Every structure is written in C-alpha cells, then in structure tokens.
C-alpha cells in the first residue's frame, strides 16, 4: 500500500518538528528574558522568608494548589485547579500508551478485569473533569469585563485543549485505538526510523492537535508553565 504523503508528514516528520520547536522555543523564551537588564527593585511581598529553601517550599505550594487564588476567588480556583489536576492525571494515564505496566498490577494481585475497571474510571473522571473545567474557563471569558481583557490567544488556547480532550475521549471510549500498534509506532519514532504509521482518523486528529499545541506552546501565554515559578519566587524570597 503506497503511503499517503500528508499522512507521512503528520506522523513521521511533524512530531520531530514539534518537539524541536517546543524545546528550543522555551529555551529561546528563557534566553529572551535573561538577556534583559534586571531591575534593582525588590519585588518581595511580606511576610517573606530569607531562607531560599523555605521560599522554594512556598513556591512549590503556589504551583501545587494556588493558595493565592484560593483566598478570595473560590470558583475560579476550583475551575483552574481541577483543570490543572486533570492535566496531571492525563500525563499519568498516557503512560500506558508508551509502556505497559500490567506487571505492576499482577504483582499487586489485581485481576485484568478490575484493572480495566479502575483504568476506565480514572480515565473517564479525567476526561469529564477536563472537559467541564475547560468549558467553565471558556465561559468565563465571555463575561463583561473579561471580554475586553481577553485577546484571541486566550480563546484559542482553551479551544485547542478542549478539542484535544474531546478527541482523546473519543479514541479512549468510543472508537478505541489499538495500543499495541501505537507502542510499536512510538518506539520506531524514538529510534528515528518511523514505521507502523497509525491510520486511525480519531487518533490522527488527536495527535495533530497535540503537535499544534506543542508548536504554539512557546509562542504565547503557555510560557506561564516555566515563568510561574520565577515570578512566584520573586515575591516569596526576601533578598538581602
């Protein structure tokens, strides 16, 4: 069977482009920040700690459960925190795409049926939480003042992730993809000899959108993933 050139581009060339853009783009953003002159001003908000270890612990807390948001914006906190939690859950559950961890469950004496049930519940919960929290975050953007504040990018990022989530739910629960085929494909991709190219439409949509996200990632607001720790540390650490 001859290989469709578009399919070949998406599955065998674009992944490499996406990962190169993602890593280099983020490094470039860091470089752009670092090449700027530093302000001598102090950004600390008291009470802060002088000990860098304690400050890091607080920054870690900021990243894990957004305590500043929790104080007065309870609804937004719930939406934002659940969304980020579901992202973490997604990363955990995608592990099985690349590698089988049945041995873990076998050692724990869990039968395949129960494992499948747990897996279904976990993935189902992830999908529902992610889709609803994204819908909430997107709906917020249309309220009076936020509409004036938001730019195109804000809607684009939310819609893109929502589309990825819906495509993901589709290939996980409605039209299931063959994981064994995918595992062989990703292994070959990692060896720089792409073979076993996937042809499932649902998966291709999901995959393509993720690569678009990876390319967009360093360009826009997504840099808050690498910048949030820095800004938080500026506020938490009292410099002498």
């Amino acid at each position, binding site marked *: 069977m001859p290989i469709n050139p578009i399919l070949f581009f998406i599955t065998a060339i674009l992944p490499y482009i996406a990962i190169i853009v993602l890593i280099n783009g983020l490094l470039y953003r860091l470089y752009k920040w670092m090449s700027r002159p530093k302000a001598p*001003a102090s950004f600390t908000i008291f009470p802060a700690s002088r000990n860098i270890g304690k400050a890091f612990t607080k920054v870690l807390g*900021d990243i894990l459960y957004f305590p500043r948001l929790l104080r007065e914006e309870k609804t937004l906190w719930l939406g934002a925190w659940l969304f980020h939690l579901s992202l973490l859950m997604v990363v955990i559950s995608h592990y099985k795409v690349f590698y089988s961890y049945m041995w873990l469950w076998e050692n724990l004496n869990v039968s395949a049926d129960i494992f499948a049930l747990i897996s279904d519940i976990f993935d189902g919960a992830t999908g529902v939480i992610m889709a609803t929290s994204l819908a909430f975050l997107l709906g917020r953007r249309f309220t009076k003042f936020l509409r004036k504040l938001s730019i195109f990018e804000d809607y684009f990022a939310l819609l893109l992730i929502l589309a990825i989530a819906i495509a993901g739910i589709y290939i996980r629960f409605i039209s299931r993809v063959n994981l064994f085929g995918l595992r062989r494909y990703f292994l070959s991709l990692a060896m720089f000899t792409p073979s076993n190219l996937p042809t499932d439409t649902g998966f291709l949509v999901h995959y393509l959108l993720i690569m678009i996200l990876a390319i967009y990632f360093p360009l826009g607001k997504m840099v808050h993933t690498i910048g949030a720790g820095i800004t938080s540390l500026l506020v938490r650490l009292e410099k002498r």
Partner: protein
Amino acid sequence: MTAQKMDLAKELDTRLTRQAFYHFDVCTRCNACSDRCHMYVETEDPIHSPAYKLALLRRVYKRYHTVGGKIAPKLFKAIDLSDKNLKEISSAMFECTRCRRCATHCPFGIDPNWIVSAGRYFSSLSGQAPKTLTAMAKAGVKRAKYIENYEYLYTLQIKTLENELYEITNDPDAEIPIKNPDADLLYVPLAVQYVVNSEKCIGCGLCRKLCPQGAIKGEFKKPSFISQEECIACGTCYKNCRLGAIVVKTPGAQSTIMPAARIFNAADENWSLSLYDAANYNYFLGDIDNAKEVTSYLINEAEELGVKTVVMSESGHGFYIMRHLAQKWFKRNFPFKVKSTAEIMAEYIKEGRLKFDPSKFSKSISYHDPCEVGRNGGIFEEPRFVLNHVAKEFIELAPPNREYNWCCGGGGGLVAETEFKDLRVKTGKRKAQQIKETKAKVIASTCENCRSQLTDLNEKYNLGIKAASLMDLVANTIKKK
C-alpha cells in the same frame, strides 16, 4: 509627530526590565486581581483593573516591538500611541495607589507595581503626567540639591518648633538638634508644603516681597499663588502673613517632627534631625534617576554624621525606598540601619526607655497597615506591640488585615495630588466599611498619606473615628519623668 512617537516606543523598550517581561508573559488574564483592587471594585472602570493596566502597556509594546503586533494589531489587540491611548495609559497608571494588594492575590505573584512605575515614567515623557506631581517632583530635587539656601531658614523654623516644644513638655532640656556630630540616630521628617488659601488672601503682596526664592506670584489685590517648583518651604510667608492665608498643606512639621522630638528626648536618645525630606515624589513619578539623586543626598548626610541608625518618619514610601530600594539602587551596603518609627519605639519599650501612663488613653484602638510599611516593608508586629502598650484595648481591623489589608485609597501620591481628591474619597469606601465593622474609636497608622486619607474618609462617611499617627499617640501617652 510620528518620529516623536517612535522615540517614545523605543524609550518604553529600554525602560522595561527583565521582571517586567516575566509579568508580561506570565499573565494569563485570569482576572483574579480586578476584584481585589479597591479602585476597580468601586468604579468598575477597566482602567483600574491591574490586569488591564498591565495589558495596556503590553499592547503598546506589542504594536511596536513584535512581529505579530506589527502585522495584525487587531488580532493581538495591539494599540498604537495615539493621543487617546496615551491619555488612557496615563490615567490608568496615575490613578493607581501602588498598594500591591492585587499581587497578594495573583496566582503567579505578578506585581503590577513595577509596570505602573515604568508606565508612569513613560506617561510623564509623553507629557501626560499630573501637573502637581511633576511640580512637586521637580521641587523635591531642587530642595535636596540646593540645601545650603534652605538650611538657614529651616533652622529658624526648627527653633520656633523648639519653643513650642518647651511649652508642651515643660522640659528645659528639650531640644531638636540639627547636624549633631555625636548623633547615633538620624531622624528624617516630612517637609511641609505651603499653599495660599485664595479665600483669605487679599493680595497685599507682602509675602511676594519677602519670599527669598521669588516663588510667590500674583498681582496686587488678587490672590497670590505659590509656584511649587520654586518653593523651598522655608516658612517665611507663613510666619509673616497677618491674615493666616498661607496654609500648611501637609502638616509635616507638626505631625512628624514634634512627636518625634518628644519621644527621642523622653528616651534620652542622642539624635539629630535631618535637613532632607522623607518624601520622594520622583519615586511616585517613576523617575528613578531623580529619585536616586534625592536619596543620595540623604545617604551622604547620614554617612557624614556617622550615625548608626536612620529612622524614616511616618512616610510609607520614604521608608520603603530607604529600607528596601536604596541599597539595591546604589549596589552597596550602608554603614547604618534603616528603621521605621514603629520599630524604634518598640525597641525603646523593650529596653524600658519609654514608660506609659495607661490612664491617658482609654479609647479602643485599631491599626491600619499602610501598604508601603506592611505588605511592602515587612513591619507587622512592631506597631501592634507598641499599641498594646499604649492603649487599654487594641482591636485588629476587621479582616482582611495585615498583608491582605485594603489600601486606604490615598497611596501612590494620590493624597498629595489635589485633582484626585474625589476619586480617592470615592474609592476609599471599602476601607470605610472595614473601619465601621471594626468599631474602634481611633485608627492608628504609620503613614502620613494614610492618616490624611483616613481623616478625609471619616468626614465623608461619618465614621466617628479619629485617624492618628502612631508617633502622636505614643508622644501623648508617655509618662513624664
């Protein structure tokens, strides 16, 4: 016209620091900050939203310095430097009290204060800054630079204050030393500012003749006015006006020098009064070069006198600049420590150098954390410690307090600028509610700006409180030896 605007855009690029870009890029426009701002809550005006302030400057930057903004400005909502936009930026930046309450509620800890600072300087370059603030900033530099002209008259003024001090304390040893070479402690007061009350002034022209700077202008039989750019606050006009038409606008001398003198003398401190002013209007203008210059004179004075401690009077930003910014600006460590008035008073109490007469003060009292002293300066416990000794009953302000305290609405130079009076009284409504809930009779604070603003709020909202400065309260309750 366009060339000038390109220069402005270039200037914006050079003024924005690394930290500003973290803030620009990390902000996800989640709008968690807007409802935390006392100004936005009361006015619902977009320009008072911290996120919008940040976005405004960012949109200008995008229009001139990024590919996306140059090609498709509509898509990125990039805006150019039209007069309308410049005006909007100016009012967004100058109508901010820089209290940083929004930063305490930002999930990323983004701090619009420094964007506002850059934006203010940018606005002043484009000629959009409020006139009073610009005038005061210029006068500030002049006063510090030509201190020799000002010194003699200032000394005379202090001598009259010293006479008043004898009358109040009945202490023959009471003194207000200036340029004391053996001093351990340098106290930096707030200088006074004189304005003409046009209702009382008949235009006799006496002050115009007497003013050593020629700063008072006007015509015969018409109210005079004082040009704040040239005024060095010597007080000649104030003393000589027979109609009482010259008004002291910031009661700096009365509310910061007198109580300080009473406290330091009671504690037997070996102190000296600074010739310079604790207020630094160039900082409010975002003009860091001039702010540094004004501060450098003060640092020189402290180093020449060889003092161990510099105490900044109850001026929030003055304390913040000396304590947290000055060493970083000049990239060196000073041989003295910078302390707030609350810290030094707490020290005296701990050492047993100040004793109080608790019968003198029986009202319930609460403490308002000024932004520049609390959240930005890190002084939370000392004022509460002092107040617990001074008053019988100390009540915490109704929550949110401490680092989450509502701004009084007078910070960022707004109290000093007459054109913002309506705005700041209107936006102080949140603070007024909070004070009402607290049910304290006296609200103390360690910032002159906050005290003036709380007094205005008291009048407008009938709170029935007294806004007092912490030093005043302490000075009035000291037990006589």
